């Protein structure tokens, strides 16, 4: 013999009612659950308010008749207002706390078919919280026919069965979501994984703007795109992914690129332009290097975020676009706010959810999984599988994870390193000598004296070329290049570089001076123009 089965249930002040013999033709939940051929209730704890004692007696007699096995206990439960959530909850809570549950000898079922909806919700909550250490029993009337008054029942275990499956499903979804955000790379860095887990939750729960901070090459664009894929997969967006690097948007074109213009809005506006914000309607707009955005554009953007409306250039009517904004930055925007370069209200609007992407140097344990990922990517792009032999691999990893490896360009450096090694591999195998050469190349690129963080000289000149240049010139070149990459044209850069001396000259060709200077190092302006910060 198993444990005793005990049902706890409220009397149904509507459903259980009936005095005449017709009551037997009707489904009365409290009586009916005692009538099943495959369910024997050993004890029934009926919860009854004072006003319904007469009804409880009829129900009690009828249960005695259909179920002589059942011991019926009537418990008084004050319920002056069965729709008062607080009072009902308190009454049931007190009952549960006082009830001498004996889980070793008895199994409990809470009948949630009777009682007001408020009472049913309270019973559910108290069962879910294990104040009632019970399963739920839900009964329902049967189809028409001989047994219709008995109906059917089902028992629901909130700890097990499909509820557990739902919980598992949720966990599974989360793992999938995180895997997607990590691009399928089994990252090991704790801080990074925690950041991704947070981002996954935010991405699915919120439409608010997200700010991704991190150095160039840390993978902001890729992450923004995966965030879009995740939201799209869960049908939270159905518009497109639109991205732009704000550093490329300076000057007159910026406004119209972002917000669009009407035909004839300005000289040269021969055709109307939709603008990126409108293109991102119902989708996700990724504005990388948002710190590079001009103040006018910032003002427009703020309004577009807050009101989902903005005025295209030359238009007299506002347009609507509902997009989610993800912004990226490698600058300290707080400092930019202090110096007046960035609007404080815009920052406040976009940094509700700020996620900082660590550079690769801070995630050394993730270098190995990313190395595999890059090799896979190369194989997918080139159609040939490239592998590293064991010694080559451990040599590369040893260097890559050592403090010596600066990884200034972060994932972009790793991407470049793998591409170079894979290209130089023989018969699809990356050997120790290829690895050694690459290590030397990386060492050179990150060598001290290469100037600022970006290492522009290393970016544009090979180590061999650099060896022929004096340190004196290297230091100067680094600064010159730093200015060049910030300027849109050679003239622009020339003007800034030769600002002082050009005042005293009758005529000057700053662009020419710059071209000649660059030529000394074998560089041309168009080489520099291919570089975009943060891309």
């Amino acid at each position, binding site marked *: *013999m198993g444990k005793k089965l005990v049902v706890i249930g409220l009397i149904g002040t509507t459903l259980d009612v009936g005095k005449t013999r017709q009551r037997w033709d009707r489904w009365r939940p409290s009586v009916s659950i005692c*009538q099943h*051929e*495959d369910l*024997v209730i050993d004890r029934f704890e009926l919860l009854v308010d004072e006003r319904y004692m007469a009804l409880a007696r009829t129900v009690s007699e*009828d249960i005695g008749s259909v*179920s002589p096995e059942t011991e019926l206990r009537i418990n008084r439960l004050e319920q002056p207002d069965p729709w008062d959530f607080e009072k009902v909850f308190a009454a049931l809570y007190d009952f549960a706390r006082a009830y001498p549950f004996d889980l070793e000898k008895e199994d409990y079922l809470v009948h949630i078919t009777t009682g007001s909806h408020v009472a049913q919700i309270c019973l559910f909550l108290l069962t879910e919280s294990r104040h009632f250490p019970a399963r739920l029993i839900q009964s329902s009337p049967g189809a028409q026919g*001989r047994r219709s008054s008995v109906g059917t029942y089902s028992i629901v275990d909130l700890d097990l069965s499909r509820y557990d499956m739902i919980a598992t499903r949720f966990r599974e979804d989360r793992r999938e979501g995180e895997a997607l955000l990590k691009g399928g790379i089994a990252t090991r860095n704790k801080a990074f994984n925690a950041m991704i887990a947070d981002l996954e939750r935010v991405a699915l729960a919120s439409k608010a703007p997200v700010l991704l901070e991190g150095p160039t090459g840390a993978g902001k664009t890729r992450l923004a795109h995966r965030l879009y894929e995740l939201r799209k997969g869960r049908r939270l967006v159905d518009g497109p992914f639109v991205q732009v690097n704000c550093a490329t948007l300076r000057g007159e074109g910026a406004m119209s690129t972002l917000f669009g213009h009407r035909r004839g809005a300005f000289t040269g506006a021969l055709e109307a332009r939709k603008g990126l914000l409108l293109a991102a309607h119902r989708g996700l707009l990724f504005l990388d290097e948002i710190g590079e955005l001009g103040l006018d554009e910032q003002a427009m953007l703020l309004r577009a975020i807050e009101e989902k409306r903005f005025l295209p250039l030359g238009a007299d009517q506002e347009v609507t676009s509902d997009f989610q904004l993800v912004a990226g930055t490698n600058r300290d925007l707080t400092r930019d706010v202090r110096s007046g370069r960035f609007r404080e209200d815009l920052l406040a609007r976009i940094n509700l959810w700020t996620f900082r992407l660590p550079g690769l140097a801070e995630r050394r344990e993730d270098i190995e999984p990313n190395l595999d990922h890059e090799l896979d990517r190369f194989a997918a792009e080139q159609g040939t599988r490239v592998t590293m032999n064991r010694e080559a691999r451990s040599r590369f990893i040893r260097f890559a994870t050592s403090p010596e490896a600066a990884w200034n360009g972060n994932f972009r450096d790793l991407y470049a390193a793998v591409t170079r090694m894979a290209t130089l591999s023989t018969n699809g195998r990356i050997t120790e000598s290829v690895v050694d050469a690459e290590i030397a190349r990386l060492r050179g690129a990150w060598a001290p004296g290469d100037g600022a963080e970006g290492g522009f000289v290393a970016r544009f000149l090979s180590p061999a070329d650099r060896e022929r240049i004096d340190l004196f010139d290297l230091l100067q070149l680094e600064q010159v290049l730093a200015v060049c990459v910030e300027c849109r044209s050679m003239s622009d850069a020339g003007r800034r570089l030769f600002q002082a001396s050009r005042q005293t000259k009758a005529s000057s060709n700053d662009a020419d001076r710059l071209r000649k200077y660059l030529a000394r190092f074998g560089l041309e302006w168009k080489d520099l123009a291919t570089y975009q910060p943060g891309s």
Partner: protein
Amino acid sequence: MLCIDGSFGEGGGQILRTSLTLSMMTGTPIRVTKIRAGRGKPGLLRQHLACVRAAVEISGAKAHGMDLGSMTLEFHPGPVVPGDYQFAVGSAGSAMLVLQTILLPLAHCTEPSRVMLEGGTHNPAAPPFPFVHDTWLPLMGRMGYRVDATLHRHGFYPAGGGQVEVAIQPKTSGQTLHLRERGAIRSREVVAILSNLHAGIGLREIKAVYTALGWPSDSGRVEELRSGRGPGNALVVRVECDHLTEVFTGFGEHRISAEAVGEQVADEARAWLDSGVPVGSHLADQLLIPMALAGSGEFRTLPLTEHTRTNIALIERFLPVRFIVEADGPAFHIRVEPTNEAASAN
């Protein structure tokens, strides 16, 4: 230990009840597997459990698998103890099936017993009380079983709550049952029992039976019950003959007309009346075990039901007897005799 496949033949609760009765009668431990395996709700249901519990109680048996839904039951009976018992069946299940399970073991004791049964007394798919009282027990009495059953309260589905008191005296040596003929019909009666229902229903049922059987319309009466719980309706056709009384019972149901209920019972009665045999199909089932225990006896009946064939096969596994079934025109002749081993052992 005797292993019984609960799914063989008719495959229902009868296999379990017959096995329990014979296990107690013979002191044979049994293991019944695949109990009601092919049924919609397989395994032990409430009414089956009630029979197992009653058997455990009167015989002090050790039982394993005595749970709802259990498909295997092990039952080790002890000596049957006569006395006062009270058994209740839930969900308005038939109390008569409990009686059927325990009656023979108690009757074979040397002291009397008194059993109070509660639950359904007039159930479809079970011997209803009028059949037990008017048909079965008198024949049992002829075989030496002195049983007196009193209906205190009717119990119908779904409300149940019926009550039957049964006084069981120790069995005396009775006669061997020879039921080849029914003899002349002495009386016939149609009774519509109505519990908390309109009398008009009963009158329509009775009329339907008259019409179908071509009987004169003076043999019907309506029995109205006001004290019973819940509604209920049974239609009883009783035919008293020289050698036995046969009872056929129909049950009123929701959405089935009174006329349909009447016609259905009339069909059953007519099949028996036309055949000329004494023993109807339901009665045949009830006579097999006492006859087998006696080791001899015979009767003529209608073509055998699956129920009856299953019962015969089961009884032959417990007792050293053999049933000989022979076609006798459209009817069948069933005879029981000891097997050769039993005969030689004696």
